[in-house]
């Protein structure tokens, strides 16, 4: 049973009056709000258990290490990785993709090799590859998007070839909500002996993910989009790949021994975790994931699917409103425009009604270029949103339309 009132009560910010109005938070694709237990977990750690982790013989350091490593184990189980040490802590999705570009990319992708992405990637899954291509003279290939915001598998089959070294693409598009056919893409990549990275930043909070079942090579996500703290993120990669990859940053914790003649790198996962990490954040990320697990990701899916269906139907019914991204397989994102009205104007009017949406290009400028639009208004949903909030959104969009036309 999905007790929405109880769930909403877990998120203190949802009761925060915004501009004298009740907050309607529909910017969840940018970041999700935090339940009290997550906020408390970070606070509790600093108040009662804080010290630097690893190598400390003292009591607090050991407690911190146990908690921090316990979350790694928890995340391993959450995404069903084979080994705990295949879970690398990062600062977030962007950081994780850059790590792969810098290590795997620099070592295994060479002149003339190809990297394949889609037209709908977030900038964080475009720019790291462009930087790599500039340096290594490799080639970035783009699977085009269709009008409905999806890709065609036949295009993917043409573009992913034996020249492809890596396919890097989204699970769910942040700008349009499209769900990529990830299983097929993974299969196509592997048939061509290419590795594949899945950007699960917009999927991990909505769908169950099993990296072994997917047989994906790399999977990345951010903690702050799954109700955890900012500055936390995960890179999952298969053990074999992690062992072959050179380290990312050099420093403390990532070494076994250091001398001026020869430094020996540490074992996995520490080889990729130089310096003091975001200890408190990672511990609270564990609390956030537990919160999601306690609600049940399948229950979340069911609730969100119904809410999304309702919101799509209601928004579609607004005259002059056009939804961008109309693929059959869509997640909790609705990108839209009101005819003849700039998205920024709509955002300002909704903001004054206490509604938080995002306007602009959503870090996916190629998508906006494809549609020849300056940007969109994006409402994105989480399990704490309600049909009543959708109704408030609709009323406010109608009001904005009236004021701005």
């Amino acid at each position, binding site marked *: 049973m999905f007790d929405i009132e109880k769930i909403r009560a877990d998120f203190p910010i949802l009761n925060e009056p915004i*501009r004298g109005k009740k907050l309607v938070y529909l910017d969840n694709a940018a970041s999700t709000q935090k339940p009290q237990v997550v906020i408390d977990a970070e606070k509790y750690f600093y108040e009662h258990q804080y010290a630097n982790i690893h190598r400390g013989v003292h009591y607090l350091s050991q407690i911190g290490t146990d908690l921090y490593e316990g979350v790694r184990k928890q995340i391993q189980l959450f995404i069903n990785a084979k080994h705990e040490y295949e879970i690398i802590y990062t600062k977030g999705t962007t950081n994780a993709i850059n790590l792969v570009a810098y290590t795997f990319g620099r070592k295994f992708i060479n002149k003339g090799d190809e990297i394949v992405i889609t037209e709908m990637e977030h900038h964080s899954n475009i720019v790291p590859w462009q930087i790599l291509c500039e340096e290594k003279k490799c080639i970035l290939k783009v699977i085009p998007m269709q009008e409905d915001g999806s890709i065609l598998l036949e295009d993917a089959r043409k573009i992913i070839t034996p020249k492809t070294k890596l396919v890097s693409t989204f699970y769910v598009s942040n700008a349009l909500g499209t769900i990529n056919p990830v299983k097929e893409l993974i299969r196509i990549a592997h048939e061509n002996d290419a590795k594949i990275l899945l950007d699960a930043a917009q999927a991990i909070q909505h769908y169950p993910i099993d990296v072994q079942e997917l047989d994906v090579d790399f999977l990345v996500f951010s903690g702050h989009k799954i109700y955890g703290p900012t500055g936390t993120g995960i890179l999952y990669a298969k053990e074999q790949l992690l062992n072959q990859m050179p380290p990312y940053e050099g420093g403390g914790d990532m070494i076994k021994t250091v001398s001026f003649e020869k430094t020996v790198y540490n074992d996995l996962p520490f080889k990729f975790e130089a310096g003091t990490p975001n200890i408190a954040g990672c511990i609270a990320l564990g609390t956030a994931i537990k919160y999601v697990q306690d609600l049940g990701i399948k229950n979340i899916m069911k609730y969100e699917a119904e809410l999304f269906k309702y919101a799509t139907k209601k928004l579609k019914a607004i005259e002059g409103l056009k939804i961008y991204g109309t693929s059959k397989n869509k997640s909790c994102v609705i990108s839209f425009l009101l005819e003849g*009205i*700039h*998205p*920024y*104007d709509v955002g*300002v*009017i909704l903001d*004054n009604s206490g509604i938080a949406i995002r*306007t*602009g290009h959503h870090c996916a400028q190629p998508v906006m270029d494809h549609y020849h639009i*300056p*940007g969109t208004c994006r409402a994105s949903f989480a399990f704490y949103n309600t049909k009543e909030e959708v109704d408030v959104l609709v009323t406010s969009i109608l009001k904005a339309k009236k*004021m*701005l036309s």
Partner: protein
Amino acid sequence: METKSINELQDEIVEDFSMYDDWNDKYEYLIEFGKTLPKLDEEYKTDENRIHGCQSRVWLNAQMIDGKVIFEADSDAIITKGIVGLLVSVLSGHTPKEIAESDLYFIGKIGLQEHLSPTRANGLLSMIKKMKTYGIAFQAK
């Protein structure tokens, strides 16, 4: 004809806005004001005249006529156009020195200061900087 000073113009706007205590009315005013403003000629919508850092596109054109700076501005977002229109109505037609030395207090007084936040992504702050830069540059000429 005696032109009004920058501060007199600012005070007029502040007085206009003092009639509204509701954000709704303020934005209605801005939107209506934005709609009445002439469109900038396409030839002036150049990259050079573009104010960057805006979610909407904003252009500012400046010319020096008889010792006065004449500003024209446009935006494809109507609220932004209303706000830049207010800035133009306050600063246009004044001497470079007056513009460079102006203190634009009206924005805060009419409760639109949040639009001046550098993180607001509407580029208003860059717009003001650019207008003042014109003031300084034309003085030097």
